[in-house]
């Protein structure tokens, strides 16, 4: 690994963000709107509910954590799309950079962009709607860690899809979090799902995070083995995503797609 080359990918993204409001503002505006929207929904639910149950840490916390995962994934894919949009593959991949270094650069860029979104969400959720992360205790660390890993895996897998299918395939990438969310049990317990969906949900690392989150808020305790399993699954998905990317990259090298990417297909 050459850190100079990894830094180059990060620096390129920093330059683009610094000088383009169109890139910087969406890092926090959409997640802030999401928090505001769900903040009022939870406030309303607290008002109309007759039980003493507090919806804020359940729903608003879930939205915040889910948006964090989405931001991580989009952080990876957006950094990759910059090369797609500027038709820069030939220039980048003709340098000594390896696929591992390139992907590391994308992930670093994602850490920066998702951190911006996370900070804004935390500020809005806590200052405006009184969400306190003290409720989750130190478990917030493994929660964020697992979601970050899975977001990275989804991001790398998404880049592999676009690299294989061409620029137009970016529209397959944006809905991925929405497709996964029913199985990730963001807003409801896993037991709510039909049997066949539960099996899929058990393969989703975020499901272990949200199950633990609800257990804590309900006064119980999180299952560390379950969280460890979720983290293990997320690492496994990263390995699988990297393997997929490398396979797709090699195919693109054999077919000539890297050099003529805008053609989308050489067949």
């Amino acid at each position: 690994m050459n850190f100079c080359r990894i830094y180059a990918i990060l620096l390129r993204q920093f330059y683009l963000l610094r000088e383009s409001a169109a890139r910087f503002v969406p890092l926090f505006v959409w997640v802030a709107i999401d928090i505001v929207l769900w903040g009022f929904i939870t406030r309303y639910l607290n008002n109309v509910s007759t039980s003493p149950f507090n919806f804020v840490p359940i729903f608003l916390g879930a939205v915040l954590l889910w948006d964090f995962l989405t931001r991580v994934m989009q952080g990876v894919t957006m950094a990759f799309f910059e090369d797609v949009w500027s038709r820069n593959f030939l220039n980048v991949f003709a340098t000594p950079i390896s696929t591992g270094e390139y992907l590391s650069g994308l992930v670093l860029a994602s850490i920066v962009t998702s951190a911006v979104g996370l900070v804004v969400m935390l500020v809005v959720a806590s200052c405006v709607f009184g969400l306190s992360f003290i409720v989750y205790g130190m478990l917030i660390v493994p929660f964020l860690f697992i979601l970050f890993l899975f977001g990275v895996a989804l991001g790398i897998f998404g880049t592999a899809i676009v690299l294989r299918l061409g620029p137009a395939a970016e529209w397959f990438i944006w809905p991925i979090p929405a497709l996964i969310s029913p199985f990730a049990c963001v807003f409801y317990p896993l037991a709510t799902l039909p049997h066949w969906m539960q099996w899929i949900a058990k393969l989703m690392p975020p499901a272990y995070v949200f199950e633990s989150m609800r257990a804590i808020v309900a006064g119980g305790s999180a299952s560390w083995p379950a969280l460890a399993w979720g983290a293990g699954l997320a690492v496994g998905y990263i390995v699988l995503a990297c393997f997929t990317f490398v396979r797709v990259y090699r195919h693109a090298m054999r077919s000539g797609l890297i050099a003529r990417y805008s053609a989308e297909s050489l067949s």
Partner: protein
Amino acid sequence: MDHVLSVSGLRKTYGSKVAVDGISFEVRRGEIVGLLGPNGAGKTTTINMILSVLEPSAGSIHIEGFDIQSHRAKALSHTNFAAVYAPLPGNLTVVQNLRVFGLLYSTPNLTARIEELLTQFELTAFRHTRCGVLSSGEQTRVCLAKALLNRPLLLLLDEPTGSLDPAKAHDIRIKIREVVADGDCGVLWTSHNMYEVEQVCDRVLFLSRGNILLEGAPKTLPQQHGKETLEDLFIAVAREPLAFREGHHP
């Protein structure tokens, strides 16, 4: 080691279609080699394989002694390229692009090197201009500055003056000649401008249908094959490649 580039038995096929058919050649230090041929002859395919963005079906490529397959990073750290179809990202400024690519090539003393190239290619006034708003001539100069960032020992230039007016093209040719004269750099240059090839290249390779048909000095090769100019020879090779392949001199 005399050769900066050594290509042996290089072949690229797409299914049954043969794009490059087992070609072998070398580029020496301080030498500019012209890779000539009609459209679709396999020039860009060859360059893409040397740049390691296209996997050969067979054969080997060594840059500065490093096999591109097994020592890709080392081989490419000695290489760079400029091509009319590969402009730098238009949403970054000249300096930003040079910094990013300088880091990708792990260029030592990068800031000083960037300043040196900005001066050399008369880009100082455009340092904070986004590349996308530069004229094609200015963009070509930025691409060439990028191509020289890492002081490459092998420089691949795919029609570098293709979008330039004659005066600008002349200036670029002189600059590249100076770079080669000042160092150990070898250049592989493709062009459809035979006047330019005669001016710049020490040696030319005629490629047609994936094969090297002729090789020699651009000033003497036409006469050796009964043609007055390099352009006449180019036309003859493009129209009757089989005659040259079989060793005839039409």
